[in-house]
């Protein structure tokens, strides 16, 4: 049984998705989704512990040996990503029941849960597989279900933003599959480990740099790196609250993982950074993303859109860490994957609570909520502090490693930009906090505090923000080992 855990991680949610559709009852489908997401979390924890103890796990689908068949290959890096995705999934699903009943019409709720589990399956699949074409297949599973989830938003604009995401996401996926196809033509293999062995022989051809370029652009579209980010703010703003919380903390993270996997494992750090000079592209874009997207966030009137732009800036931090191509830099990038998932998950979930009681997440609609919904707004404040990077929160830990990585290479201007980003984060977080705490609530019935079924999952993530901010040994240690595994040093 335990030998089959890598595939059971995928198969159980994959089977749960059609079952949730067949149950066809809002509550029943939710129970199926809950079971699947908690199962995924349990298996991810078991896999991470096994990888940390015994090293890389390999599983042959269909019993076909590795370079020919599809291989699931789990090392520290993807075990950590699996934990992030399944952890957020396991927290958002209990939250989704009440939130979705309010925001999605009853007839569509079973299909909502179906799409939600499919999205989870796809994201887990991207992380678990060691086969590049399988990555593409799971990418399509997660993307198509994400488009459907976003389109279920209450606002009519949800449809157009899902369509916009569909077009941009399909362009990204097409670029990725073109890149994979070119690699396959040149090497005759789709297995990542096998590709890594065979690519150096043909690296001097013109095809491989073209494949590299297609993959870079395709993946950067998926992870919404500036200037390929235009689909993201609308998609996050108009999606149902629980979808925003889930997708914001997992989908772009998994895309960053794909970037890491392709550039460090498949192409190798030497080819990506010395020959192709990827850092010359990624670093300036990351810096522009941090500054410009934070500035744009300050001017937003909708709190969800504000956080969406903040997410774009935070993606800049991850890419900045990765573009340093050192163990500390990649550690900072991976650590921020985890930490940003915690803070954005918590923040978007508090906005879901506000949506549930107030019916709007525009900043001015949040006046006086500090008094009327104290627990919700307290969660927002802690999440915001984490976003800024105040000590004792996870945000501080990732910024610490990022600054450390920049100074290690003597690039102190980068450290300045990171700190400037924090300063801008203070401004956009304050914008919401000021309205919520220092403006009187509007006349009429004050909104009640959000129900416990929303508050408990939200606070679970808030506590995680604090816990992993104080005791970063686990996360930073695993992130460091993941970075070492990707860069092929240490061990």
């Amino acid at each position, binding site marked *: 049984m335990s030998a*089959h855990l890598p*595939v*059971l991680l995928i*198969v159980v949610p*994959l*089977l749960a*998705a*059609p*079952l949730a*559709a*067949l149950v066809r009852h809002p509550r029943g489908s939710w129970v199926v989704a809950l079971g699947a997401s908690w199962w995924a979390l349990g298996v991810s924890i078991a896999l991470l512990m096994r990888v940390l103890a015994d090293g890389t796990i390999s*599983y*042959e*689908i*269909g*019993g076909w040996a590795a370079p020919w068949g599809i291989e699931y290959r789990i090392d520290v890096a993807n075990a950590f990503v699996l934990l992030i995705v399944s952890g957020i999934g396991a927290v958002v699903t209990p939250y989704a029941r009440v939130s979705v009943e309010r925001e999605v019409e009853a007839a569509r709720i079973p299909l909502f849960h*179906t799409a939600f589990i499919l999205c989870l399956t796809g994201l887990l699949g991207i992380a678990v597989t060691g086969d590049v074409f399988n990555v593409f297949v799971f990418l399509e599973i997660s993307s198509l279900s994400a488009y459907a989830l976003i389109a279920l938003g209450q606002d009519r604009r949800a449809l157009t933003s899902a369509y916009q995401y569909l077009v941009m996401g399909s362009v990204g996926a097409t670029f990725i599959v073109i890149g994979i196809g070119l690699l396959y033509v040149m090497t005759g293999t789709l297995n990542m480990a096998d590709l890594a062995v065979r690519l150096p022989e043909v690296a001097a051809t013109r095809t491989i740099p073209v494949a590299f370029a297609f993959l870079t652009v395709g993946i950067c579209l998926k992870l919404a790196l500036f200037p390929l980010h235009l689909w993201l703010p609308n998609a996050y703003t108009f999606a149902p609250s629980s979808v925003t919380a889930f997708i914001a903390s997992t989908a772009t993270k998994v895309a960053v993982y794909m970037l890491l996997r392709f550039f460090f494992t498949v192409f190798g750090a030497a080819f990506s950074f010395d020959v192709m000079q990827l850092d010359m592209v990624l670093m300036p874009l990351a810096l522009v993303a941090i500054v410009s997207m934070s500035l744009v966030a300050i001017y937003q009137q909708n709190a969800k859109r504000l956080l969406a732009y903040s997410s774009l800036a935070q993606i800049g931090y991850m890419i900045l860490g990765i573009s340093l191509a050192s163990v500390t830099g990649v550690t900072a990038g991976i650590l921020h994957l985890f930490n940003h998932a915690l803070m954005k998950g918590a923040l978007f979930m508090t906005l879901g609570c506000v949506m549930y009681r107030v019916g709007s997440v525009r900043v001015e609609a949040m006046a006086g909520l500090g008094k009327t919904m104290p627990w919700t707004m307290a969660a927002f404040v802690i999440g915001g502090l984490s976003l800024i990077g105040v000590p004792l929160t996870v945000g501080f830990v990732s910024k610490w490693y990022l600054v450390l990585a920049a100074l290690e290479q003597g690039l102190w201007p980068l450290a300045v930009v990171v700190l400037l980003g924090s300063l801008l984060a203070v401004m956009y977080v304050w914008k919401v906090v000021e309205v919520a705490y220092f403006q009187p609530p509007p006349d009429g019935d004050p909104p009640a505090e959000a129900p416990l079924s929303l508050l408990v999952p939200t606070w679970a993530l808030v506590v995680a923000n604090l816990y992993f901010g104080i005791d970063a040994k686990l996360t930073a240690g695993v992130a460091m080992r993941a970075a070492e595994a990707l860069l092929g040093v240490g061990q």
Partner: protein
Amino acid sequence: MDDRVILRVGAKFLIPFILLFALYVQFHGDYGPGGGFQAGVIFAAAFVLYALVYGLPNAERAMPPRVVYICSALGVVIYAGVGVVTLLKGANFLDYGVLAHDPEHGQHYGILFVELGVLTTVFGVMVTVFYAFAGRGRKDG
């Protein structure tokens, strides 16, 4: 369309052969071109033709949307279910060899069942998409 006798008779004549051809493509999939996806599309095409000639309400009576919905979910269950059976028999996921005494027969059965799952889901989704577009603007949406 009551007056278009040629269309109605022609469609009535063609539909059984389209369905049969879909099954041929399905079962021939492991020897030649074809397989579950193509078969599912052809199978769905028969119902699309029926709906075009005899109207959507008749088609929905012949193939109720509820059944189509169940089909689109059931196919995935069949596909993954074959994998689960191989797991229960002690082999890796989708290792068809253990499905029969002779591994070669096992591979054969495995592929057939998996393709049946593909056919079911593709058929279900194709007809669902057609019903969704054809039913647009009608009162019950």
